């Protein structure tokens, strides 16, 4: 694949060919980044849908992946700024701690699962279970998300510029959900909530950081009704 025009031009020393180095070779090179080194900017070529590319990075690198990736890309990311110039498979940026992960195409299911922090931007659609069990990550989806998104979401923000599939926010804790389009259905204990000036400011900031051109005033907010926090014998039949 020719390097997409959106990727900064880098010399050969900053370009890692996954076809040549293999997955472990590429990840080792990125993970071995020495503190204070100037080699902070990398392009990964020939990803060919392989799994676990650019996983476990823990320094402020800028990494562009020139093509489609498989499962668990950019998992456990800390501080790095990773861009996938294509489609991302299951579990992109799962358990991310900090930094930024951007997917230029669509993403498969469980994007940003269990993420603790940082910003995940999916410019296209995300499939089912986007943000499942999120614990502080911010996720901005330019398109729509599939069913069971934000399931048991604990903390952080999920911004959906398109529509949400069935059972959005099922069994949600304290994550905040913003949806511009329609919601097919809300999951258990997820309700629409008031959009206060404070929420509007947060959403405006998230959209700006994600580089998404959308009017914050068009969004509605959803969150936890907090009725499932404690087991209630009267609700036994509902469990």
């Amino acid at each position, binding site marked *: *694949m020719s390097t997409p025009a959106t990727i900064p031009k880098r010399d050969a020393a900053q370009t890692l060919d996954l076809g040549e180095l293999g997955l472990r070779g590429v990840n080792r090179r990125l993970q071995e980044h020495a503190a204070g080194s100037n080699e902070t900017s990398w392009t990964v070529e020939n990803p*060919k*849908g*392989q*799994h676990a590319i650019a996983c476990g990075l823990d320094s402020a690198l800028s990494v562009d992946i020139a*093509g*489609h990736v*498989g*499962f668990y890309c950019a998992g456990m990311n800390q501080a790095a700024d990773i861009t996938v110039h*294509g*489609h991302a*498979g*299951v579990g992109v940026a799962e358990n991310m701690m900090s930094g930024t992960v951007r997917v230029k*195409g*669509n993403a*498969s*299911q469980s994007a940003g699962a269990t993420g603790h922090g940082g910003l995940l931007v999916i410019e*296209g*659609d995300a*499939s*089912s279970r986007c943000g499942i069990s999120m614990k502080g990550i911010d996720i901005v989806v330019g398109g729509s998300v*599939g*069913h*069971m998104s934000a*399931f*048991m979401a604990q903390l952080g923000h999920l911004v959906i510029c398109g529509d949400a599939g*069935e*059972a959005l926010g*099922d*069994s949600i804790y304290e994550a905040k959900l913003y949806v511009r389009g329609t919601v097919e259905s809300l*999951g*258990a204990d997820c309700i629409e909530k008031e959009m206060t000036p404070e929420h509007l400011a947060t959403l405006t900031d998230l959209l700006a950081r994600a580089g998404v051109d959308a009017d914050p005033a068009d969004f509605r907010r959803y969150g936890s009704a907090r009725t*499932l*926090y*404690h*087991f209630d014998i009267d*609700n036994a039949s*509902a*469990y």
Partner: protein
Amino acid sequence: MCGIVGLFLKNEALYPQLGTLFKPMLVEMTSRGPDSAGVALYRDPVADGETKFSLAHDDRDHDWQGLSDALSDSLGAASRIEQRDSHAMLVTDAEVGAVERWLAERHDGTRLIGSGRSIEIYKETGLPEAVYERFGLSSVAGRHMIGHTRMATESAVTSAGSHPFATGADLCLVHNGSLSNHNRLREELKRKGVTFGSENDSEVAAAYLTWKLRDGVSLKQAMEDALDDLDGFFTFCVGTADGFAVVRDPIACKHAVLAETDDWVAMATEFRAIASLPGADNARIWEPRPATVYSWGGDGMDIASVDHLPATVVPASARAAAGGLH
């Protein structure tokens, strides 16, 4: 586990390369299914009045010509046969039901694994690349092909338990997932006269579609009905004379990805199986929605969202887990 792949060529210029293009797709899914592999290939449709039967036998030295001659004599039909390793393609102008009965009554270990005008099914135990090569599939030409690599869960690793499973004339099914109500459904289908060649759960799904189609239900309707009647998790790919169709269960936890360019449409369990195709880097790629039938062939792509999604789309187990954890 298991891996499934499908390739439908839109550009006629690529037809001669079908076998070459398909091989790396199947081989890439080896890690998902090293036990057995199989493909359904659609090519060289037979003349009106003729039927092509895919036959298999455990004995590689099975006397296929003798079988063909005996069938011609018994049924007063014109027949020809071509062997490919442990399989053979029999083309005859005899009536389909008569051939099925004749083969069943012969009791010589021959297995009838598919039939139609253009379908050819090849499947065996072993690594996908070895299976592909033993049948000499790299050089085949055609318009579309689907395949499966199996990691056995529900039944023995045998040729008979390998995918694809035939579901009717020019129809077959490959399955990634596992069905939980297959034993009861198998018994119900047996009572309706459907026969089985293995204890495999996926064969029950194929038999279910066979039974529905035999009743005159359309393929799309049969696949939609399967969403109601099959309990378990699945991504199905169904090969048809014109192309293939894909459907996932309403929970959709088994992986699936679709990709399309001007030249081809491909389906796979994981994108890496598609990455080798020409132009894959610039393909449109997306994950198929749950409970939605996608099909290619004829006039192109047809997407039919099933409008009666079961109310239980949120799994009871998930609710129970959520309740328990709170």
